[in-house]
């Protein structure tokens, strides 16, 4: 009899825990249902593909920022990295007539290099990455503006359209790239020792160091991964816009960050899944897209996005304190 009650109460808590674990997914489903009712144009294949493509660019960068965040740091310079690499890629192709393949390669390398810069500064100056990347964000963006020199750079090879505007089968190219990046990211984080190191660093940096993880090198690599991901975003975005402008990519880090937090990536590090991240990015996508369809005014969209973030994060903190209470119970048991 006593055993039975015990089992039951265990089951109840684990069911509750399961439910809480999928909170972001439930929010997403609830939003989809809500908007399907509000506007019939929402739940169509055509619209959903548009929706996902809209956020696929930010999603790729978000995978990058997720590596940085799980490792216990933050990168606020993503948008500015894209501004700079975007302008350079545009100039390389349109003005210097660098072959497309080579130009793309250089862009990816440059993105990685910008990440390495962030990482090196964080490691060498021993200043919080938030401050470091706030500084480099301003520098990268400024450089982009200087190089662009108020121009609208145009005249790219036609083949370049494919990256941002083309399709592979029924799927837009950016979505396919997003899926590939997400799968690779997920594999690295969950199936490799490198992934373990990332979680370890974010979970307890000193313990990771004492266990033989080269923290400084890891930190630089994580920023480099983030830079590389933003390089990919940059290549796709320029093809989508098809004109080199300094506004492209600006501020994208806020969507990335919001998606990560919505999806349960911990701001303190050591926690996060790609599944959660993609859910987070889709929540943003749904909000953007559906509110446009339902012709919500632009400003109210911002209000809703912010509110959803606060609710989601608030819920996360609530369930953590809840978890902590259960923990106390177990420890004292």
């Amino acid at each position, binding site marked *: 009899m006593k055993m039975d009650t*015990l089992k039951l*109460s*265990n089951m109840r*808590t684990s069911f509750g825990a399961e439910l809480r674990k999928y909170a972001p997914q439930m929010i997403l489903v609830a939003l989809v249902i809500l908007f399907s009712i509000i506007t019939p144009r929402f739940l169509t294949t055509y619209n959903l593909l548009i929706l996902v493509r809209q956020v696929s660019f930010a999603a790729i960068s978000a995978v990058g920022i997720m590596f940085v965040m799980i490792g216990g740091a933050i990168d606020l310079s993503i948008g500015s990295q894209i501004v700079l690499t975007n302008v350079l890629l545009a100039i390389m192709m349109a003005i210097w007539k660098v072959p497309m393949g080579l130009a793309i390669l250089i862009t990816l390398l440059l993105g990685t290099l910008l990440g390495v810069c962030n990482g090196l500064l964080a490691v060498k100056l021993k200043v919080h990455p938030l401050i470091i990347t706030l500084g480099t964000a301003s520098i990268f963006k400024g450089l982009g503006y200087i190089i662009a020199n108020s121009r609208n750079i145009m005249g790219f090879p036609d083949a370049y359209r494919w990256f941002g505007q083309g399709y592979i089968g029924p799927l837009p190219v950016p979505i396919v790239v997003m899926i590939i990046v997400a799968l690779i990211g997920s594999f690295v984080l969950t*199936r*490799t*020792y*490198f992934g*373990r*190191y990332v*979680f*370890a660093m974010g*979970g*307890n940096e*000193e*313990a*990771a*160091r*004492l*266990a*033989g993880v*080269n923290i400084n090198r890891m930190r630089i690599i994580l920023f480099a991964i983030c830079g590389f991901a933003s390089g990919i975003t940059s290549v796709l975005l320029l093809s989508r816009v098809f004109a080199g402008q300094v506004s492209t990519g600006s501020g994208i880090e806020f969507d990335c960050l919001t998606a990560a937090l919505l999806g349960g990536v911990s701001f303190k590090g*050591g*926690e996060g899944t790609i599944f959660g991240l993609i859910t987070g990015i889709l929540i943003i996508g749904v909000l953007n897209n559906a509110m446009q369809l339902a012709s919500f005014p632009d400003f109210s969209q911002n209000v809703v996005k912010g509110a959803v973030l606060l609710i989601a994060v608030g819920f996360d903190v609530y369930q953590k304190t809840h978890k902590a*209470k*259960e*923990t*106390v*119970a*177990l*420890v*004292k*048991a």
Partner: protein
Amino acid sequence: MNANIVLSLENITKKYPGVVALNNVSIEFLEGEVHALLGENGAGKSTLIKAVAGAIPIDGGSIHVGGQTYHQMTPHLSRSLGIEVIYQEFNLVPPMSVAENIFLGDRVNEKRLVDYAAMNAKASEIFQQFDVALDPTSRVEDLSPAQQQIVEIAKAVSKKVKILIMDEPSAPLSVAEVEHMFAIIQQLKQKGVTIIYISHRLEEVFRISDRVSVMRDGRYVATRLTQETNRKELISLMVGRELKEVYPSRTVIPTETVLQVKNLSGNGDRDISFSVKKGEILGISGLVGAGRTELAMLLYGAAQIESGEIWVNGKLAHIRSPQDAIRHRIGLLTEDRKGKGLFLEMGVRWNISFPIIRRLSKRGVLDFQTENDIAEKFTRRMNIKTPSLEQRVINLSGGNQQKVVLAKSLAAESDILIFDEPTRGIDVGAKQEIYQLMRELSDHGIAILMISSEMEELLGMSDRIIVLCEGKLAGEVQKEQFSQDYILDLASGTH
């Protein structure tokens, strides 16, 4: 009893989902007594304190203080009744001054603005009572743990404490500092303050307490007059069975030198030389701040070596990072298992396999099967009590957490293990298991360096002891010369 009962707990019950943390606990505390609360980890001592302090709500029972009956406590209420708790983790604001911490949340007088002069003067007054030289204006983060504890005590005193609850107060202190703390406790006692003293260290209980209550598995077991009980009885009350703290004796005689340290300096230590043989347990003694942990960090590559040499297996080893140390098969069990030893949010399997996870991977990809096997093997070998390998270690008891830390370093197959306070804050039963394991390891030829503040285990387990004092080697003591007084003399620099 002719003294007044100041605090009486009646049938206190606290349930958590699936467990009963406190089961009808009733204890009475007298005015001006030092009442020790004993029990293994998980016996419910901490939960009981929290219930009294109002940090957690209780599910049943009542608390009687000053003639009033309370069925529920709140932090505010318990404070107003003169109950103060000094937790193991201090509740201080590190960047603020000593005086500011003491009077945090209180006003020293009726002035509109903070009267720093009055505040500092009042703080000094309290310190004088205790014969402590502490500057009220210094920042708490610059203080040693012992000094921080004094600030905590001063804080309680400033709040007109009637019942002071101290949770493992001696844990962060050296021998001399513990003596000082005892002196302060005696003074508080003379003022009529009741002290509830929670400790794992039986010798302290006998030194300081008037009465002692034992808890086990969330239940109250017994209360004894300290004078009328003995060590053996208390241990058997705690564990529910007879258990002696025995130090297993060795079966193999060490001969071959595996680690040799020559004139090592750095991290505050100067010119330290010693050697360790294969299968030997070398005790490292010294007061807190003598540079013991600092030495461990040097040997493990976690701190910069300024000069000197480390030889491993007869070869000069260049140890500049923990990676280097691991490569030379040196393992470290840190004194700060939560802060530096464990990934608390991660599971048991995850933690045990972490140091060797790279080796367990094929072309970078994890081999979950092997990982699981290894984690299972060590969980069994170390007798780690956990519902599953996926259980997050934050949910384990202190003793089991320490075993996870041990399992980690064993899985890494080190030849030289540095144990920094291996039994700190864990209960008698788990201690015994760890001693047994250390002996097994040394019998298998592993060299162990054991840093410990517990003289008894140091004398019991070591083959040889080196003593540090103020960052220097104060002496080396052979087994035949082992004596507590001699080692203390060396450690305090009076020899």
